[in-house]
């Protein structure tokens, strides 16, 4: 049994224009000690998926309209708020995009980590503090003893993201959801954070769900990836295979717009291309057609008439495209 199973998940957002499915018929599984990556532009439903897994959809606006989320076989879509709160932190943790704003500014970093330890593991004040220092050491913050007494504003962006990871790890979660963990950081710090996450996964056996729009990050971190477009799965499969041979024009677009530094353009590396157009507005979501059609170079009448079927290829690669075989 997989650690996490998501089946035909449908999440609806209620807006002024009515109800729109921000997640439409999404299914995937996550095995223990696996890293799965969600890729896609802004507004494709990546973060919504993460919030749904945590049971933290915006109150009164978003709701699970159908499908199942099973964690260790336990259904989460119908779990009580108290049970969800228990699972959050203990079993599933999350690190957020903005390390600058996701730490509480009025408490020291050590206090914030110790607080989580006390709440979840019932440690005493001094034992929790000692372990907080150890965790800061584990996420490679130099001089952890001294830095534990620092306030978040005294730390750099990279250090804060490390502190966030320490908080998320304090409860020894089985799944760590990282929502664009390095978007706000510069490239060298990004590489350090990826290193850290990889090492921590090896040491603790935590599964990681990484949400990003950076194909480079995916290639570096994940074993499998899901490409999302307009709330739907565009393509799913092993990272290497997809990067090698993407079957969905949107995936191909995402891959070809990653820049490589090269003095001379060769046939292997043509001009950097973009995916023209933008993600359709929420009103378009849920239409019975290929939602990528408006931006696709290979669009045919079939794409506009019906939603594309899931076409399976070797090694579990699935692409939602009418013309997947042709690519």
């Amino acid at each position, binding site marked *: 049994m997989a650690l996490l199973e998501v089946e035909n998940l449908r999440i609806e957002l209620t807006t002024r224009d009515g109800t729109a499915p921000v997640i439409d018929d999404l299914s995937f599984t996550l095995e223990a000690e696996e890293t799965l990556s969600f890729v896609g532009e802004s507004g494709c439903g990546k973060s919504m998926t993460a919030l749904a897994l945590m049971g933290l959809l915006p109150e009164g606006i978003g709701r699970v309209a159908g499908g199942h989320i099973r964690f260790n076989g336990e259904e989460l879509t119908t779990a009580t708020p108290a049970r969800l709160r228990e699972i*959050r932190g203990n079993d599933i943790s999350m690190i957020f995009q903005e390390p600058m704003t*996701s*730490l*509480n500014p*009025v408490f020291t970093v050590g206090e914030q980590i110790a607080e989580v330890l006390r*709440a979840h593991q019932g440690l005493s004040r001094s034992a929790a503090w000692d372990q907080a220092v150890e965790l800061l050491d584990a996420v490679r913050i130099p001089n952890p003893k001294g830095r534990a007494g620092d306030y978040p504003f*005294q730390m750099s962006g990279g250090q804060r993201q490390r502190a966030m990871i320490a908080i998320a790890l304090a409860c020894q979660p089985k799944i760590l959801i990282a929502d664009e963990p390095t978007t706000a950081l510069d490239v060298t710090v990004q590489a350090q954070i990826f290193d850290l996450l990889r090492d921590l996964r090896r040491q603790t056996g935590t599964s990681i769900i990484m949400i990003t729009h950076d194909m480079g990050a995916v290639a570096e971190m994940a074993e499998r990836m899901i490409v999302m477009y307009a709330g739907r799965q565009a393509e799913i499969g092993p990272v290497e295979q997809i990067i090698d041979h993407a079957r969905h024009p949107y995936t191909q677009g995402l891959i070809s717009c990653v820049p490589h530094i090269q003095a001379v353009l060769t046939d292997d590396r043509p001009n950097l291309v973009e995916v023209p157009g933008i993600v359709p507005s929420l009103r378009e979501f849920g239409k019975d057609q290929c939602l990528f059609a408006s931006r696709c170079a290979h669009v045919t009448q079939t794409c506009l008439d019906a939603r594309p079927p899931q076409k399976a290829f070797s090694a579990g690669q699935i692409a939602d495209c009418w013309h997947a075989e042709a690519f």
Partner: protein
Amino acid sequence: MSDKPIIIEDETPKAQSPFSEAWGMFRRNHAALVALFVLAVIVFMAIFGPLLYPTDPFEMVWAPFSPPGQEGFLLGTDYLGRDLLAMVINGAKVSLLIGLAAALVSIFIGVSIGALAGFYRGWVEELLMRITEFFQVLPTLLFSMVIVALFGASLPMITLAIGIVSWTAVARITRSEFLRIRELEYVMAARACGVSNTRLMFGVILPNALPPIIVQSALMVGSAILFEAGLSFLGLTDPNVVSWGQIIGSNRQYILDASYTVTIPGVAIFITVLAISLVGDGLNDALNPKLRQR
């Protein structure tokens, strides 16, 4: 040219804690610093004054209406021949205590209601804010007079009456801060760690909402002292304790013959409330991040 090598001091700047940073900002406001000193003197007088100047404020010590400075009575005597200095000293304790306690009552009510309304939104907010508006439009002096008249003029009841009519501003400030802070990422991050709603409200959001609440509370101590003075001027006070407002109230018929009996406690109220307001202003400078840049 000196042949001494230049030594660059290797001193990593130690960042300040929020408290010392706030104190640094407060210190720059000289008026607030002076006011803090004045307030400290008044509080000292209220606590130790009766020991240092042990004259009974209710005892007739000399002929009535003896002007200040005569016969060894620094501030003179009132219409019953009581020592005004002793009355002012003893009145300080009651005025300050009621001011502080009433402010605490209104902070307690205001913060609870504002926090619940701002955190839970929806019908809870709707209901609580309508209640707040109801209290806001009541004529405050009249309402507190009714409470005191109905339930008796004891100190706790006066405190409660003042607290009950003045919590609305705190509730509104607390609610608006909660509305702002509950959407911030660190609150979401705390939720993602499985923090309970009560802890979110009072352990995560409230500490971040405190600065404006503290400033408002400081100002409220001042207005509560004024309120108490107003009530006791009207005679709604415990006759067995001296307060500044009560001295003014009991001497008001002789305002033309012996104006000092009214002026002296009035000045005491004025200085105290002014000092508290200035300290509140200093706190605002110290705690409001938007003013930090100045």
